């Protein structure tokens, strides 16, 4: 009795009213819509994680903190491969992505203003993209020197 009841529930909810192994067009559409729903949800989550604004702010803060903790004579390399892909998609030259001012870093991955973050270390900073065989490899080089 219980088993029959359970199988009835399964048949009713997933296979259709008769439960004779017939695949109904309605059920196929139902399953396709469910799969589409899940796919859209996953795509949304993946896209959110790679947001331009989020990347701009994280690169700007990361480089500002590295500069704050640096001493004259130091060189550090920042991996910005994701940023390079987004900048190229948005038509921004990779060499223009990072701008370092007297006490700020500005990261620009779109043609809008970019994201600016200040640092307190009074040093000279020069930033340039690294190249391998005349092509950008997604790394940015920061050199620190005394003012």
């Amino acid at each position, binding site marked *: 009795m219980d088993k029959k009841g359970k199988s009835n529930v399964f048949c009713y909810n997933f296979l259709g009213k008769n439960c004779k192994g017939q695949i109904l067009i309605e059920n196929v559409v139902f399953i396709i819509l469910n799969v589409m729903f899940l796919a859209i949800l996953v795509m949304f989550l993946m896209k959110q994680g790679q947001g331009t604004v989020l990347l701009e702010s994280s690169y700007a803060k990361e480089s500002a903190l590295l500069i704050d903790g640096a001493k004259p004579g130091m060189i550090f390399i920042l991996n910005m491969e994701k940023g390079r892909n987004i900048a190229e998609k948005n038509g921004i030259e990779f060499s223009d992505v990072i701008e370092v001012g007297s*006490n700020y870093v500005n990261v620009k991955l779109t043609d809008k203003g970019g994201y600016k973050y200040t640092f307190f270390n009074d040093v000279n900073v020069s930033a340039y993209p690294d190249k391998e065989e005349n092509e950008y490899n997604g790394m940015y080089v920061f050199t620190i020197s005394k003012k």
Partner: protein
Amino acid sequence: MKILNRNFDFENSLFKFGLRSKAHPNSDTEFSNKINQNQNSKFSKNKKGSNKLISIYWFAILVIIAGGVVMMVNVFYSSPYDVREAEAEILSAKVADCLVKGGEINKLLTSPTGAFRESFKDNFMKFCSLNFDVEGEFERPEYYVEVGFYTEGDLEREKFKLIEGNLNWKKDCNFKDKNQEKLVKCVENDFYAVDSTQGVYLIKILSIVGKSDQNVK
């Protein structure tokens, strides 16, 4: 019979709102058997309709779940990374490195007799290569740093004090409220050092970073 009809209406409404599926009425009680008989006679023509009804509820649940996920993701990604504590720690470490070298207080700060040089106060930012400048005319510095030198005998009153940055941040540090974190991030460090005459000092460094616009939602 009247009561049975009422119960039937209740079952019917449960079924309509998707709270009871067609397979469930298979219970052992006499009451439900009677209902089943009634349902078989009433619903046999509307099975397709009830199927669609269940699908609508299923999609309503999916929409609610999707809404929840979108809302949670937005809340998570719209709040920026808060790096102020790391920044304040770096500032504190940088000031400590500047004032003390190898456990001994910087020669630029004290004279050979052990007295503190007042001129160091004026050039503190330059000596320690700090830059708290801001771009806008009406903008205030986002940093504050305070260093106190205490002798072993008197840990209440500092013998020498260095202050730089936006003094307004200091009172926000002591603000006792759950929203205090949204105002500033304060880091306090202390350590011992000796001067050129081997006098021992307790050095307390308070470093504060504002920047709440960029680090707090």
